[in-house]
């Protein structure tokens, strides 16, 4: 009787301790509660902690000639049932019966089970309750055997994942089509396939008390600056929140200038982009559960560069890059400049154009500023509606909306025709550089207000403030406007324009101080010795 009461007390105290651990998870130095000897007690504790959710399966069975009671706990759906049946259940229940009892006697502690009996791949033993629970929750199956004070965590993960597909955004004419998936392991595999060098180091940190998300920091040893890696790791490990659901969380926690409208951490869904950034000395952050992989540091100019630029021949690539910069400028400056022209500096407009514009603007009730603001607002609403609705309807809504509203507004005389054209140009050109769409939109509104208040002078002052703000930004130690503002001539060949590949001998200055050279000298033979 006493023994029963005594064991009852023991299980209760263990239970209370585990509850305590659960409550204030995340504090580092938690006294980990040890497993008890008897299986039933461990089982009751497990049942108490894991609760009655029906996807947690506890399979009790007898194994071996010596009739040892054992129990297997796993989460249905997270585990690959084939592994459980073939590699765990079958050897324990079935083969153990066939083998003679001789090697059965040899099993003294849990490790013998691991070496002899189980044929699963990755098996770890542990005697701490929270480790076992974590393992069980993240898809492994936990084996407890009566009489042994430590359990086995057998990796049997395997849930149905999305196949590697072409990402919706950033479709590419030339270059690989594969995109990342939600599973971190596939993503790291995709990168490994690109960079087969063992120097590519992957380090996993568990962030988020409730979500326990795996965050993998990838960098290439010897290329990325050690300072950068240490900095990224410090910032990530300092994050102490209960949920990390998407890489965006990480981005906002560790970025350099949280108050700036410009992103200082890049992201991409395509392995070749991440690989090229890793090779130029950046650090990639792969978060389990999202196909978006972050890269740091990011330069302002990199928003206007796509992976395609490097696969095409240099001339058209440079033209495209200049086009992207121009269209970003148009998308930000078109409405404010139009307002400044129409309200303040009419003499800048050539005379014939002035007549047509004045005729079109005849009788429109609102001043140009209000008109521009209203049209921009409708455009933003339409764009958001277009994205949020399912694909086919979304497309239809945004096009129909734009056309109908624009046309009727003009014919009703509420808005001048040139205004609709300007807003249309802004809309189209803002799609050319999708990553900068957010900061572009905010800048457009600020400049519009300034243009309405002080015309050309207002716009100049607005642009000056933006330029100063951009020049002061730094992304992990790299100046944000790097090839232009601090004027690094060596990098100019790959910033606004792209020089031919064989000219780009060094990595961007400041990114890879240890080994800056990318390639020795593969100038095409035709150029090296033209006479031959």
């Amino acid at each position, binding site marked *: 009787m006493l023994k029963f009461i005594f064991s009852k007390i023991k299980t209760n105290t263990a239970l209370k301790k585990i509850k305590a651990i659960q409550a204030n998870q995340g504090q580092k130095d938690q006294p980990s509660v040890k497993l008890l000897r008897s299986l039933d007690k461990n089982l009751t504790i497990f049942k108490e902690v894991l609760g009655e959710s029906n996807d947690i399966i506890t399979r009790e069975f007898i194994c071996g000639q010596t009739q040892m009671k054992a129990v297997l706990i796993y989460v249905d759906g997270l585990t690959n049932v084939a592994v459980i049946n073939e590699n765990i259940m079958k050897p324990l229940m079935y083969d153990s019966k066939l083998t003679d009892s001789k090697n059965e006697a040899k099993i003294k502690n849990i490790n013998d089970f691991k070496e002899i009996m189980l044929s699963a791949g990755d098996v770890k033993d542990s005697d701490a309750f929270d480790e076992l629970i974590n393992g069980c929750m993240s898809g492994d199956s936990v084996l407890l055997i009566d009489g042994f004070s430590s359990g086995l965590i057998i990796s049997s993960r395997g849930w149905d994942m999305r196949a590697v597909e072409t990402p919706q955004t950033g479709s590419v004419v030339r270059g690989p089509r594969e995109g990342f998936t939600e599973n971190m392991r596939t993503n790291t595999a995709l990168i490994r396939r690109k960079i087969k060098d063992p120097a590519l180091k992957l380090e996993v940190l568990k962030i988020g008390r409730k979500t326990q998300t795996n965050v993998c920091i990838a960098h290439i040893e010897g290329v990325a600056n050690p300072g950068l890696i240490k900095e990224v790791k410090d910032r990530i490990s300092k994050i102490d929140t209960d949920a990390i659901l998407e890489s965006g969380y990480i981005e906002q926690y560790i970025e350099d200038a949280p108050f700036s409208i410009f992103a200082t951490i890049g992201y991409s869904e395509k392995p070749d982009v991440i690989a090229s950034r890793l090779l130029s000395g950046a650090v990639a952050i792969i978060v389990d559960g999202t196909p978006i992989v972050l890269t740091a540091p990011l330069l302002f100019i990199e928003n206007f560069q796509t992976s395609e630029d490097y696969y095409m021949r240099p001339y058209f690539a440079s033209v495209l890059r200049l086009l992207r910069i121009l269209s970003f400028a148009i998308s930000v400056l078109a409405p404010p400049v139009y307002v400044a022209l129409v309200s303040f500096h009419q003499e800048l407009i050539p005379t014939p154009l002035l007549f047509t514009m004045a005729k079109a603007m005849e009788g429109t009730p609102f*001043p140009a500023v209000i008109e521009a603001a209203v049209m921009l607002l409708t455009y933003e609403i339409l764009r958001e509606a277009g994205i949020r609705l399912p694909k086919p309807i979304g497309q239809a809504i945004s096009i129909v909306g734009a056309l109908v509203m624009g046309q009727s507004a003009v014919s009703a005389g509420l808005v001048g025709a040139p205004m609709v054209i300007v807003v249309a140009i802004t809309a189209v050109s803002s799609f050319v550089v999708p990553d900068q769409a957010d900061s572009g939109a905010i800048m457009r509104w600020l400049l519009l207000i300034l243009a309405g208040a002080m015309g050309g002078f207002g716009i100049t002052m607005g642009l000056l403030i933006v330029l100063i703000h951009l020049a002061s930004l730094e992304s992990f130690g790299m100046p944000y406007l790097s090839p232009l503002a601090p004027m690094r001539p060596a990098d100019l060949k790959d910033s606004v324009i792209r020089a031919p590949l064989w000219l780009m001998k060094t990595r961007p200055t400041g990114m890879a101080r240890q080994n800056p050279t990318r390639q020795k000298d593969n100038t095409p033979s035709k150029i090296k010795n033209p006479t031959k």
Partner: protein
Amino acid sequence: MKNSIGKMLKICLSLLLCLALSGCWNSRELDSLAIVMGYAIDKSDEEGLVDMTAQVAVLSDGGSSDNSSSSSNTASSEAYWNITRTGSSIFTILRDYTHESSRKLYSPHNQVIIFGNDLAKNGIRDYLDFFLRDHETRLNVWILVAKDKASDILDVKPKLEKIPAIGLSDLIEDQKATSETVQIRIRDFLERLISDTTASIAPLVEVIGEGKDQIVEMSGTAVFKQDKLVGELNKTETRGLLWVLSKVNSGIITVEAPGGTADLEIVSTETQVNVEILDDGSITAHVKITESGNIGSQTGSGDLSKTDNVKILEQNMNDAITAEVFSAVEKAKELDADIFGFGDMFYKKYPQQWKSMKENWDELFNEIKVEVEVDAKLRGSGRIVKPAYPAEEE
């Protein structure tokens, strides 16, 4: 963390502060502008007053798009509207317009300023002053002088353009083809006005014909002494003046040719003028004109492709050009207005002596000996070599 919030607050506050304060003083909507295309200034009947006509572009055509309203519709939907006000000075008149026009006048797109003849006679300096001082007028506005009343020029409805002022400014630009008119912008007029000796010049324009088929025509140059109109040059004298100023772009010279006359087209010209003070104190101006042209058309049967015929033609051309230049010089001496700018050239070359020459420059200008040396070349004779006559045997 606390510090960055403080910083952020300060920046947002300042942004708000300056936006709220600024408001939009200077913004004027496009449809609240009366776009002025041309000004015409005349001497008004009452003494000392001036009446000024501003030609405003009228744009609203009631929503019907522009191309559908062909010129057939009535005068009511004219593309321009001439407002005339009288006042003592240009600035008072401009402000006075607001009594009549619902929109404030807006003159950066103004093309032309025309001065009436009688106004030009007693000086236009103080009327020009406003246009030079106002930040809205452009420095490359055309200056014109009307044969009699300037406002009539702006009333003539051009055949090809919709607004007379634009028609006029295109007309001036096309004068390059005949180069018988001086193209003077407000800047050139000012340049000549502020020089002590050079006389200002401006193209002359007049209205010909009656009623419906009235047209505007350029007819020579008006010559000013300081800023008072003193005389006029006809077309050939103007061409002579242009030769000296090396502003002849192209044009036609008809000369005697073996077996009839020939019209020679001027293709390119270059003029160098250097002035000398000879040791006996007399002053000369040596004008060297090099010109190349080709044969435009020919009357009579002379075969102009022969080299010696070409020589004759070139010689005739030299004489014709020299005659034109001399006619201009005679007229200038008659009006004793140094329209060629010889005075400035003397100042540039002999700054010391110029101080003494400046006082009696008018007499000196009268005695100036002008030598003209023309070197005309005929390069081509078009597609046909000989005129369309039955071939004579050699």
